[in-house]
């Protein structure tokens, strides 16, 4: 396991990240970044980020990814792909954010204020169980375990959704759960973020 607190650890992390990014089809284009800032200017949540998307790429170049992993930046990416379609160098910025999320999960390094890793975990657990996402279960578990304050805020809306038939309380499962799990189990052993 890489220790993010040591110089050696940071160097190793940089190397791992490089390999991961280069493994994305077209990933090597990250070398072509000219720091124009189009990605940051296009990002709908950049104003809340500790480091803007442009700065993330700069940090990557400077070998300072450990800071990025501890920042809120990657967890504010909504996958809108605005940066990706506008980047004049053709860098897949959104995919780089995904790669960073996976590394952050692997090294358990995210700001305590960010609830996204927990949300993703709950989501994945539900898909593992049912083969599909089960919205009432995912939202219910998230609210109860991560953000009880939302229960009050969502009370009226939740009732409305339930009454209009948009929030069924029971999950629907796929039939081929066994084969589904075979696929997942086999791939889980090769996953970067394990």
């Amino acid at each position, binding site marked *: 396991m890489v220790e993010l607190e040591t110089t050696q650890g940071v160097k190793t992390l940089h190397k791992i990240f490089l390999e991961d990014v280069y493994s994305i*089809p*077209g990933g090597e284009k990250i070398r072509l970044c000219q720091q124009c800032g189009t990605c940051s200017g296009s990002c*709908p*949540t950049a104003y*809340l980020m500790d480091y803007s998307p442009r700065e993330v790429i700069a940090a990557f170049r400077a070998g300072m990814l450990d800071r990025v992993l501890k920042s809120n930046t990657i*967890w*504010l990416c*909504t*996958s*809108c*792909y*605005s940066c*990706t*379609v506008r980047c004049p160098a053709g860098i897949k910025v*959104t995919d780089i*954010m*995904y790669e960073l*999320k*996976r590394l952050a*999960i692997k090294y358990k390094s995210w700001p305590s204020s*960010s*609830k*996204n*890793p927990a*949300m*993703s975990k709950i*989501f*994945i657990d539900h*898909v593992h169980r049912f*083969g*599909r*996402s089960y*919205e*009432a279960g995912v*939202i219910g578990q*998230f609210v109860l375990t991560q*953000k009880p304050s*939302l229960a009050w*805020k969502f009370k009226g*809306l939740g009732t*409305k*959704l339930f009454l*209009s*038939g*948009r*929030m*069924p309380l029971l999950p629907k499962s796929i*039939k*081929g759960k066994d*084969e*589904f799990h*075979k*696929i*997942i189990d*086999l*791939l*889980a052993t*090769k996953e*970067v*973020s394990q």
Partner: protein
Amino acid sequence: MTLTYSYFPGCSSEATGKAYDISTRAVCDKLDIELKELPDWNCCGSTSYFSIRELESFGVSARNLAIAQEVGGMDLVATCSACYTILAKTNRYFAEDPVLHETINEALEAAGRTYDGNVNVRHILDVIVNDLGCETVAEKVTRRMTKLRVAPYYGCQATRPKGTFDDPEFPTSLDHLLEAIGAEPIYYPVKTKCCGGMLMMTQEDAALRLCHELLKCAQDNGADVIVTTCPLCEMNVEAYQKMVNKAYGTSFNIPVMYFTQLLGYALGVDSKALALQMQIVPVENVLAKVPA
């Protein structure tokens, strides 16, 4: 001639996005588009999944594509823009990365399946506008949506990242479809801006701000209704209006519909068969504006 497709309803079609599924089936029935539901489909691989467990999510996604291949390899149509993007991305990555394709196929084989990479993934908007065509739709309209001012909201992932069937930032296919049913698509420069997506759960202040922008632009430009092509966009822009109002001191009460609901109404489909009663902000008053 009947157009035939495999149909991927996606998980939200069983909950918050039910009306999208119901209205899509009703509209396709009316337009002579045959949708054959993909047998035993599972989660598309989802952005939340993909962003954390890449390989697994490709496997989850590819199981759907393998089934689509087994049932005849027809184009696989998704309604949810996020499902569409993820399924299409799996295809693209397989084409660009043979090693990844092989790894996933090994896992699929353990489940007795295989996928060659040749099933086209399509968005329902693309199918209606480009395969069927706006002229054909116009011929079948029985209730012209005259004078209805509509904000065409495409959201992010119908056209991004690849812009396969329309421009990634300034798409027009939905605008043309709205014109075909007699409605007036308003100038809506935020048509592909983000709704906040899953941030509505994890960081609602950020998502509410984005929704506020979308609602304000629709109101300022005189929209009677906003139509969407994605269940997450629909949910965020419609259901959270009260929370936006509270945060920004506004008084939005703008009806939001799936584009298939409005299209179905124009084609003469009964309101119930379009699940119009499922909307949080009632749409009846707006539709009553339309001359009979």
